């Protein structure tokens, strides 16, 4: 909660400090940015690219404490997490066009709401605009060994692709059908 006030204050400061902030060359962020690609193999062109900030566990419990349940989360840190699809994909029952989207989530104890939204290049989840949702699905949580750093990775089997959100002991496997899987269904 304190963190929220901190960010709110930070954002207000940013608004009013104008250009000064943009001029300076900044130090490293404490939640560094990372990139995850889904490529069928190491040499092929990417199918999906995720750019996300990687916060580090501070409380004993992340979800329900450090990140509250029932509230929209930037699913990372700093700038809203960005997902780029290089071809059509299917999330839930929605076919999503190639392009860049932001990923927000609403964490819950047993299931999370996963939101893809077209309001890109926004900070955190402060500018969330429901009218720009392109997909909204619910995904049950799973438990696994504890992980200190928020991570996003892809898991692929013969006919399934999952984007896995992982932090603390929580895992959320978001099913994403890639083009070949969509075609196989037809």
């Amino acid at each position, binding site marked *: 909660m304190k963190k929220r006030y901190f960010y709110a204050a930070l954002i207000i400061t940013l608004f009013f*400090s104008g250009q000064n902030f*943009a001029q300076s060359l900044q130090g*490293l*962020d404490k939640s*560094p*940015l990372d990139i995850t690609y889904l490529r069928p193999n190491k040499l092929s062109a*990417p199918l999906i690219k995720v750019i996300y900030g*990687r916060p580090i566990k501070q409380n004993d419990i992340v979800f329900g404490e450090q990140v509250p349940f029932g509230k929209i989360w930037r699913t990372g840190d700093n700038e809203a997490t960005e997902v780029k699809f290089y071809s059509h994909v299917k999330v839930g029952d929605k076919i999503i066009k190639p392009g860049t989207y932001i990923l927000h989530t609403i964490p819950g104890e047993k299931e999370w709401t996963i939101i893809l939204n077209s309001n890109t290049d926004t900070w955190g989840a402060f500018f969330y605009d429901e009218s720009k949702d392109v997909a909204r699905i619910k995904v049950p949580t799973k438990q696994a060994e504890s992980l200190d*750093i928020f*991570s996003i990775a892809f898991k692929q089997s013969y006919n399934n692709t999952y984007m896995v959100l992982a932090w603390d002991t929580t895992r959320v496997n978001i099913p994403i059908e890639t083009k070949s899987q969509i075609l196989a269904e037809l």
Partner: protein
Amino acid sequence: MKRNIFIITLFILFFVNSTISAQEFKGIDKNPHDIAYYRANKISPPIIKVLYGRPQNSGDEVFGSTIPFDKVWGVGANEATEIRFFQDVVFGDIKVKKGTYVMYAIPQEKEWTIILSSNLDVWGSYEYNEKYDVARVQAKVSRAEQIDVFSIGFKEKGKKVNMALGWDTTRVTVPIIL
């Protein structure tokens, strides 16, 4: 026939293996990525966005040493640095259409060559190929206080925006006209 089965098995093993390793969660990279935006003001939509890896040094000389002169450099670390223009711009002295490009540099003592390439989602400068060049501009080197972390920032100057690359005592400035 046996040989075919062997090859198929090998293929399946390879496939299964690669999917398992793809699921592993990696730690934080020692050269983390960062984003630099240029916006007319803090709440307006972005005009320029740079996504880049941030290598660090500990007081040693960087350019001409760790990063050699006269060789194409990925202007960062890990995945090649990406620059996106949300509108058409004049980059240095070359007109560039709105879109996303990979940025490379050839560092030199007094002047760098900055290259924009259309071959995206590549690693470092290993896959650099001149045939994808969109722009090549010369940029002056100046000196400033020592910084340990490679940084990219924007500075407004009248109708121009200067993109500054900074590391060690080196600063390189590319004027961009919007």
